[in-house]
């Protein structure tokens, strides 16, 4: 353990000389380090000494019982929630715990929420435009113009999420499933390095689920994707490595087969039947 920590040293001699750089240093092939994370709410331990390492370009599935802390983990990574103790590093150099939501997003961490949240008063197109990967400072935004390539990109994404016809519809008027898609679209268009996707296929039909699976698989490699899902079929169809959380810490990690045959996992999560299937 000590050796491992030594390997993952991310100190620099003169950190302030490095200046502001959004480059993610993945020289150790790891893009996300989560170590010893603890978080409790009024005495309830939502995260309990949680460790998680994710390789660059990996597609990682995160499963676990309801309330295991998956969403909370994402909250901590994206700066929404402050943890009590622990460390979260993005690449070798970026300590996410010292950064706020906007910083983290600009570093290239995108997130899809469990409950779809979109800008309801704006059109589907505007929702995507806002999510574009651009300079997000005030003045720059004021004078920003959509470049042809950006428009193409948005069109492309609209096609992927099947909302081409509805591009000028107010996002608030979309159905639940459509909002799910739009949120995925917002993620895609922002071109992130690491995607945190919380329950993407909830409320989707089987075919849509399949399409989502394809989409996510195609994303992996170039990007790193962490998916939370309870739909085992879906997980099976995309998963390479699966991490199981339980009561705020990692219960098991491995390939889908390993996980499916893990007694503990079957007991607290899958149930007998699902394991057989």
């Amino acid at each position, binding site marked *: 353990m000590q050796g491992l920590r030594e390997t993952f040293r991310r100190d620099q001699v003169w950190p302030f000389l490095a200046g502001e750089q959004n480059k993610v240093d993945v020289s150790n092939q790891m893009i996300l380090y989560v170590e010893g994370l603890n978080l409790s*709410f009024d005495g*309830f331990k939502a995260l309990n000494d949680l460790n998680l390492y994710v390789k660059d370009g990996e597609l990682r599935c995160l*499963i*676990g*019982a*309801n*309330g*295991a802390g998956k*969403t909370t983990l994402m909250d901590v990574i994206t700066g929404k929630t402050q943890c009590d103790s622990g460390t979260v590093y993005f690449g070798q150099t970026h300590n996410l715990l010292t950064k706020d939501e906007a910083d983290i997003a600009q570093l290239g961490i995108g997130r899809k929420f*469990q*409950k779809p949240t979109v800008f309801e008063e704006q059109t589907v197109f505007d929702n995507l435009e806002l999510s574009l990967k651009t300079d997000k400072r005030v003045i720059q935004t004021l004078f920003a113009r959509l470049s042809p390539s950006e428009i193409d990109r948005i069109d492309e994404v609209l096609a992927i999420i*099947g909302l081409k016809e509805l591009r000028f519809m107010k996002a608030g*008027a*979309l*159905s*639940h*499933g*459509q909002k*799910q*898609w739009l949120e995925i679209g917002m993620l895609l268009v922002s071109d992130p390095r690491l995607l945190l996707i919380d*329950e993407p296929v*909830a*409320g*989707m*039909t*089987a*075919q*849509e689920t399949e*399409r989502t699976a394809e989409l996510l698989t195609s994303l992996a490699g170039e990007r790193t994707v962490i998916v939370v899902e*309870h*739909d*085992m079929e879906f997980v099976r169809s995309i998963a390479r490595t699966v991490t199981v959380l339980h009561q705020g810490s990692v219960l098991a990690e491995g390939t889908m087969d390993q996980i499916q045959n893990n007694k503990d996992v079957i007991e*607290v*999560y*899958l*149930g007998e*039947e*699902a394991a057989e299937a």
Partner: protein
Amino acid sequence: MISINKVSQLYGGTQILWDLDLDIVPGSITCIMGRNGVGKTTLMKAIMGLLPIKSGEITMGDEALHKQSAERRAYAGIGYVPQGRDIFPMLTVEENLRIGLPVRKSKEIPEKIFELFPVLKEMLHRRGGDLSGGQQQQLAIGRALVLEPKVLILDEPNEGIQPNIVKQIGDVILKLNEEEGLTVILIEQKLGFARRVGKEFRLMEKGRIVAADKMENLNDDLIKQYLAV
């Protein structure tokens, strides 16, 4: 049990439900299926009285439901588990459950609910909004059961639920249906679950019911036609 007759509904200018007819078989579990955005949730809200309908009738037995307010419909015996759960976030789990008690004129939360969902007992004094998504889903079902409804509407109850609980919810639905004769309207996207639990199915497209039959007759053609993208 509930019959819906030529119901139309509009959001602003756009019509969502088009002269929709639907009969719910008493004591059965009817599964309503359809692609995203065809109007399933809208229909359920209309049944519950949370959305005004433009025309048509909704009756339950010989009560004309569409003339009644939503709260009267709760008293009439409809329990509703909405899509997205709609837990009262700042109320504790216990308070969430207590809300419905006056409908049954009782003072205590039926013990049966904690038997069905033991988590709720554990979390009794936490705020509903703090629960994880799955826990909230269980709370939402429990909350509806406090009403001891005759008809239970479940709008995608398995969204975000861990597999063993999904199974458990299925068991609960079946058990309530079999043991207490509860009529269930279930919106479900997952075929497996629908097949296991549902007795009847109704397929929706563009605000209309386009197919209705017993669950065993749900074949691949229908699925391809109405559920595939």
